[in-house]
């Protein structure tokens, strides 16, 4: 799941300063689950923004719509009539959602209401942790299902670093040492011999470093 957090009200107010009629668009998928950009959060921000602008003596008219997914054109199309009625769009989607909407409505200013953070999981109610960096070349099978690229602060493939204390990372004690977790897990599944292998440097060409990536699956194209 993509995890995001809402931008400060002051920042959103600033980007909307030049508009008096704005469409607030929530997304019903990841950002609803991480309580950042779903129907409720759109509603709360609408209250806040209307009040802030009225206090400034420049009322704003806000229309609220939440679509199933902002990262698919099929769902974005539903927004067309509402987009037409408003001067600008504030997207509560992740970075992909904001860009998808901006591409779909090239004549309309589209702004981001959230800071998109990472691919992660729900650890407990209202707590999310990062689990995947999207490096494009998964090593999880070698490390018992625990990603050293994402969860080790030093991204070591031949860890541990030796700096951990009481199984906690030396970079931030609120984080478990990924290599401790990997050791425990490999021991539990009887694959400790994986640790005897020297892992060669990772091929980062599959990662983001050469710009935005693209996936094409020819067999499914129409």
């Amino acid at each position: 799941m993509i995890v995001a957090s809402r931008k400060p009200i002051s920042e959103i107010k600033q980007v909307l300063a030049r508009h008096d009629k704005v469409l607030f668009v929530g997304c019903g998928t990841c950002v609803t689950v991480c309580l950042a950009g779903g129907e409720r959060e759109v509603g709360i921000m609408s209250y806040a923004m209307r009040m802030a602008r009225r206090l400034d003596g420049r009322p704003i008219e806000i229309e609220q719509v939440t679509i199933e997914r902002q990262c698919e054109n099929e769902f974005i199309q539903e927004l067309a009539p509402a987009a037409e009625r408003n001067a600008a769009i504030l997207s509560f989607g992740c970075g992909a959602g904001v860009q998808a909407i901006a591409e779909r409505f090239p004549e309309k200013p589209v702004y981001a209401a959230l800071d998109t953070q990472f691919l992660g999981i729900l650890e407990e109610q209202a707590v999310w942790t990062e689990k995947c960096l999207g490096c494009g070349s998964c090593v999880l099978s070698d490390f018992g299902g625990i990603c050293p690229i994402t969860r080790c602060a030093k991204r070591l493939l031949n860890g541990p670093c030796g700096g951990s204390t009481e199984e906690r990372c030396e970079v931030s004690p609120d984080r478990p040492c990924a290599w401790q977790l990997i050791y425990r897990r490999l021991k539990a599944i009887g694959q400790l011999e994986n640790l005897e292998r020297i892992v060669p440097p990772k091929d980062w060409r599959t990662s983001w470093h050469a710009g935005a990536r693209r996936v094409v699956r020819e067999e499914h194209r129409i």
Partner: protein
Amino acid sequence: MIEIDPSPPAGAVADSNCTILAFCCNFCAYAAADLAGARRMQYPANVRIVHVPCTGKVEVEHFLAALERGIDGILVAGCLEGGCHFVEGNLRAKRRVEATMQTLDEIGLGRERLRMVNLSASEAPTFVARIQEMVETVTRLGPNPLRASADREESPK
């Protein structure tokens, strides 16, 4: 969503022209208000009581909706900490109130218009005192600046 008329109650002799909304938990503050009435205790008529099953039932949207419509102050009255009938409803309300206070600061309305208090069902004098304090605070702050511009209807969804 609750509908609130921010004008002072008809026929009431109010201490000031402000209107306070009090979200009162069924198991404590509402009973305390009832007891205050039974004991003929006087408290400002500016308060509108909203009877809720637990303060944990009150959401951020309720606070913001009331303030947008021109309510001058909101009191959230829940059970003593550790004494919630639903175990932790009042603790959840506390976190929501704190988050909303932060939002009120950010939008420029100010956190003082929202306050959470804890009391038990037998504390009628405490209930009356908390209401009086809230009225005093709101009187000092002056009317909700949004009330003056409340002539503008909320945008349609």
